[in-house]
């Protein structure tokens, strides 16, 4: 969707450089002058924010690695050394650990933005799938990084997650031992996790390049979800969107800074202040907040293999979204039913996240005594020929323990079903039954109101308040 614009080197040196390495041409044509729809809102600034956060993680990570020691007897102490002794070590570490959270905040907004405006639909399927791949790599990187401080939650989180692979039939145990390099999570595991935690962000950076490349073929989607029809629908990326993205980034960084300076351990887990101990499992294992919905899906199923399949399925289903959604209209603005389902789906995801943070048998609603079980206990006692006093005691204890309850696992089950049902059959059928609202003729007509396009009377963008 490149416009008519072509880069012209300004002086002799630039001409010389352009005919040898057209790097300024690349920058000018595909960033600065890149024709971008006029109507992008703030939800479209999160791509830039994500790029920034990746850079933050790489820069803070590289300097942390100058002080961190990936060795089971020293890792925990080296992190404490960073916190207490290294100049600004506390800042670097808090920026990195909270940076990971902010990175995930941004990626979730970015993904739900894509869902709302139908950014995954043709011709952006490959762009979307590359995004899902980046998200998977981020999850892997965050998990590997969380192992490094070698606290209790690091150790047991790593144990539970690597054990996912033991669910694979036949070769599962061999695969997990291969991952660990031992019979359990061990020093060998820590060292390879460090190596991979260093590597993966650069792999992410590579996939981000592909992601942006795939973006620049069809160009940006926009809140109306209709195609750009010509130059009247676009503005150059610079200065319009460099400034808009810059402003959004500044606000985002404000929240990031608030977290780092005022509540650096808000999202952390107190158990990670205890050094790893392979003989004691903490009473309540929870992953980092950004994995909670998937953790709830895992725990909602009483079968190990199925739980693991659903967990990964819950992520992979996103990659199939372009084909699961059968509606030809992109933006939720013109899809009255989809728009409501979108919010329901958002609540389902947050609900799963809440479930993931609770213990599974935590009771949400107590529906009263379970008469069937109590009667059975009393019958059993009667048949055993117990004395009336003994039977009364049995009844009393049964009344205390046997209750009909609605617990976290029950809620997780309902929400897991809702989660998958949203994609299929939900979105699949919705495309056939929903009547979309009429689409505007063009982006410029829509942004300039009904008085007509840019040619007939609408104020130029520069003058609008």
């Amino acid at each position, binding site marked *: 969707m490149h416009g008519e614009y072509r880069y012209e080197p300004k002086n002799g040196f630039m001409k010389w450089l352009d005919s040898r390495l057209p790097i300024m041409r690349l920058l000018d044509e595909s960033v600065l002058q890149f024709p971008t729809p006029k109507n992008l809102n703030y939800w479209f600034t999160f791509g830039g924010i994500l790029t920034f956060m990746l850079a933050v993680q790489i820069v803070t990570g590289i300097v942390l690695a100058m002080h961190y020691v990936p060795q089971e007897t020293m890792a925990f102490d080296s992190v404490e050394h960073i916190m207490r002794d290294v100049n600004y070590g506390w800042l670097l570490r808090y920026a990195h650990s909270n940076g990971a959270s902010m990175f995930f905040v941004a990626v979730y907004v970015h993904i739900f933005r894509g869902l709302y405006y139908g950014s995954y639909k043709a011709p952006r399927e490959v762009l979307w799938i590359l995004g899902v791949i980046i998200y998977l790599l981020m999850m892997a990187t965050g998990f590997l990084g969380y192992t490094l401080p070698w606290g209790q939650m690091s150790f047991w989180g790593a144990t*539970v997650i690597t054990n996912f692979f033991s669910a694979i039939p036949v070769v599962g145990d061999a695969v997990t*031992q291969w991952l660990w390099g*031992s019979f359990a999570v061990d020093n060998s595991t820590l060292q390879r996790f460090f190596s991979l935690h260093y590597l993966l962000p650069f792999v992410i950076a590579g996939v981000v390049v592909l992601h942006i490349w795939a973006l620049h073929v069809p160009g940006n989607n926009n809140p109306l979800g209709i195609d750009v029809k010509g130059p009247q629908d676009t503005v150059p990326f610079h200065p319009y969107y460099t400034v808009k993205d810059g402003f959004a980034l500044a606000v985002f960084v404000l929240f990031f800074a608030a977290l780092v300076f005022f509540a650096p351990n808000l999202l952390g887990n107190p158990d990670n202040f205890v050094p790893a101990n392979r003989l004691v499992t903490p009473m309540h*294992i929870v992953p980092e907040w950004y994995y909670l919905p998937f953790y709830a899906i895992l725990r909602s199923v*009483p079968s190990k*293999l199925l739980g693991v399949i659903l967990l990964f399925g819950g992520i992979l289903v996103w990659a199939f979204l372009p084909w699961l959604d059968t509606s030809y209209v992109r933006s939720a603005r013109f899809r009255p039913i989809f728009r409501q389902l979108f919010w329901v789906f958002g609540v389902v995801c947050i609900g799963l996240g809440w479930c993931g943070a609770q213990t599974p*048998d935590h009771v949400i609603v107590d529906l009263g005594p379970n008469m069937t079980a109590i009667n059975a206990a009393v019958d059993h006692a009667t048949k055993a020929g117990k004395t009336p006093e003994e039977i009364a005691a049995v009844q009393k204890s049964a009344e205390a323990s046997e209750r009909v309850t609605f617990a976290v696992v029950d809620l997780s089950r309902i929400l897991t079903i809702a989660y998958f049902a949203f994609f299929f059959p939900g979105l699949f059928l919705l495309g056939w039954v929903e009547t979309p609202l009429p689409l505007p003729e063009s982006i410029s007509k829509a942004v300039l109101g009904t008085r007509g396009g840019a040619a007939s009377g609408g104020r130029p963008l520069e003058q609008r308040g």
Partner: protein
Amino acid sequence: MITIRRKKGLILAHSTDDASVTRRDFIYVASGTMAALGAAAAVWPLIDQMNPSADTLALKEIEVDLASIVPGQQITVEWRKKPVFIRRRTPDEIKQAEETPLDELKDPQADSARVQKPEWLIVVAICTHLGCIPSKDMKGEYGGWLCPCHGSQYDTSGRIRKGPAPNNLAVPAYKFLSDTKVQIG
């Protein structure tokens, strides 16, 4: 010039004047195959280096003194980087384990197949779900262990009774060296 012709109806390769498959094609396929084999051979060390190393594999048996364990008590020892439970079962616990009908079990196994001496239950203390250590303090409904991670429950024979774990707690290889000494591994 080498020409490989039809031999007993088997086409190895054709000479240029014979048909469309040339000597060049043969070299192309042969060198491609060799390169693929070479790449596979070079990748294997890169993969295999991640498997447990010789010193890890060398961690073998441990000896445990049982003299101080009273009935109803349990200790946890470390064997091959894994926790192992040694539980001296009470007569009640033994009775419960032995009398459980096999058809109530998810991973049916008789108690007698899991112990050498009924009084001593020795199991790898790793939940067969996702690897946490089941807790003895929260016995669960079956008098054995409850895993704090996702709520799997084990009975007094270490057999899985409820929850997401698929299998019974594993029984390691062990032998009694004397009445009060056991060797695990």
